[in-house]
C-alpha cells in the first residue's frame, strides 16, 4: 500500500474545535466516527440514500457520507451528540422518546438532525410538510407514524416554550 498524502482537517464540531490528519478520500461520516470517536452519526448505505448519516454543516442539513472531510475545512458541524445537554435530552429527543419515534434507533440520529433543521425554519409544519421534509430519511422499523407524531409534538412544545418566553 502506498503512503497517502494526509490533509490536516480542522472543524468546529458541536462548538468545539476538532482536528485530525486524514487522506482526502476520508468521508465526513468516517472522520466523525473514526477520527473523532463520535459514533452517534450512523452509516447505512454510504451512497446518500438512507439519511442515517445526516448532520448539519454550517447550519444546513447534509449527508456526511457524500461529503469529504477536506471539503468542509473550518466549517461548523452539528451532530446528534450536540443535541442533549449532558443527561438532559434535547426537546426533540424527548418528543421522539415520548411519541415512539424510534424502535431500533439506527435511523434516529438522522431523523433528529433533519427535525432540528425543519423546525428551525418552520415551527408549525403540517403532516405533509413533515413527510416531505423527512422524505430523505429511511426508517425500517417504525412505519413513520410515530416519527411524524414526534415531530408534531416537538413543534408544539417548541412553540409553547417560545410563547411563554414572550
Amino acid at each position, binding site marked *: 500500500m502506498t503512503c497517502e498524502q494526509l490533509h490536516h482537517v480542522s472543524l468546529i464540531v458541536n462548538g468545539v474545535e476538532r482536528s485530525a490528519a486524514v487522506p*482526502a478520500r476520508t468521508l465526513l461520516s468516517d472522520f466523525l466516527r473514526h477520527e473523532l470517536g463520535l459514533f452517534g452519526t450512523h452509516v447505512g448505505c454510504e451512497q446518500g440514500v438512507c439519511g442515517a448519516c445526516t448532520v448539519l454543516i454550517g447550519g444546513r442539513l*447534509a449527508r456526511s457520507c457524500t461529503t469529504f472531510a477536506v*471539503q468542509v475545512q473550518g466549517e461548523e458541524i452539528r451532530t446528534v451528540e450536540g443535541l442533549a445537554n449532558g443527561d438532559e435530552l434535547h426537546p426533540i429527543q424527548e418528543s421522539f422518546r415520548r411519541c415512539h419515534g424510534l424502535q431500533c434507533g439506527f435511523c434516529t440520529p438522522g431523523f433528529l438532525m433533519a427535525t432540528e433543521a425543519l423546525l428551525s425554519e418552520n415551527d408549525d409544519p403540517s403532516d405533509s410538510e413533515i413527510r416531505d421534509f423527512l422524505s430523505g430519511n429511511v426508517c425500517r422499523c417504525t412505519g413513520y407514524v410515530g416519527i411524524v407524531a414526534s415531530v408534531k409534538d416537538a413543534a408544539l412544545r417548541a412553540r409553547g416554550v417560545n410563547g411563554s418566553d414572550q
Partner: protein
Amino acid sequence: MKPESFSFYVAESTQHALDILAQEGDDSKILAGGQSLIPLMNFRLARPAALVDVCHIPGSERITVDNAGVRFRCSVRHRDALHSNEVNAVAPLVGQALKWVGHEAIRSRGTLCGSTAHADPAAELPAVWLALGAEMVISGPHGERHVPAESFFKSFFTTDLNADEMLTEIRVPPAPDPSLRRTAFQEIARRHGDFAIVGAAVVIDLDGSGRIAAARVSALGAGEVPMRLRSAEAMLVGSPLDDQELLENVEAEVRKSVQPPGDSHASARYRKKVTGTLVRRSLAECAETPSTYEGML
C-alpha cells in the same frame, strides 16, 4: 464502500482550477457539491486520480439577476437557487423543477453546475435549461466558449465539456415579457426525491391577446439526453392555452414522437405514454397559473 485515493486541490480561481486540470491530465475531475460524484466514487464506479474543489473560488456561489437574465456561477447550491426570490420572480421554472431534485440534505450541498455537468438523463435541470434556452459558459485552456444547452448534452452522462475544461456559469436569458410567460414542470418518480422516470418542462410566451407566441417543451428520461419536443412546440404556436382539443392532440403527438428506452424502472411504452401525459398536465398548469412575476406585483 470507500472511494479510492486521489489527490485533492482547492482551487482559488477559475484559472487555478484549469491549471490543475491541465497538470493532472484526463483523470482529474472538478468537484462541486459532490452529490452525484461522491456516491459514484464510494461505489468505485468513478475513480478520478485528482479532484479540484471549486466551491471556494471567490464569487462562485453568486447568482446574478439583471437585464441580461439570470447567471448561476459554478458553486450555486440547489437550495440557494430554490429559495432565491429573485430567481423565482424572473425564472420560476428553476424553482418549480428544483423542488423535485433529491431531498433537503442533497439540495443544500448539490450545485446547479455540478448536476448539469454530470448530465444524468433522468436529472431535472438539463431539461429546464433546454426549455429556458439557457447557455453554458465553459472555461478552458483556450479561453471561454458559450454553448447553448441544446448542444451541450451529448449522451448518457456525456456533455460537450473536455477533460481540461470546466462549466463556470449557466446563463438563462430573460423572458421577452415576464408577465406573459407561463412555465411548468412535472415528473413521475417512484418516490418524491428519487430519480425521475420521465418528466417534462414547459415554457410558454403568450402574446397580448392570450395566444401562444412561442413554446419550448422539453422532456427528461425519454432518451439518452434531455430533448426538445419540436413537433409539439410547433402545434402550440398561435393557439390559446386553454384549447382542450389542442392539448389532447399535443399529448398524442408527444407520445408518437418520443422514443424512450425501457429499463427495470419502466417500460419504453409506459415512458412514451407518461411523457405525453406530463406535457399535457404541464400545459394545463400553465393555463391555470398566472406567472409568479404577476403574483409578485
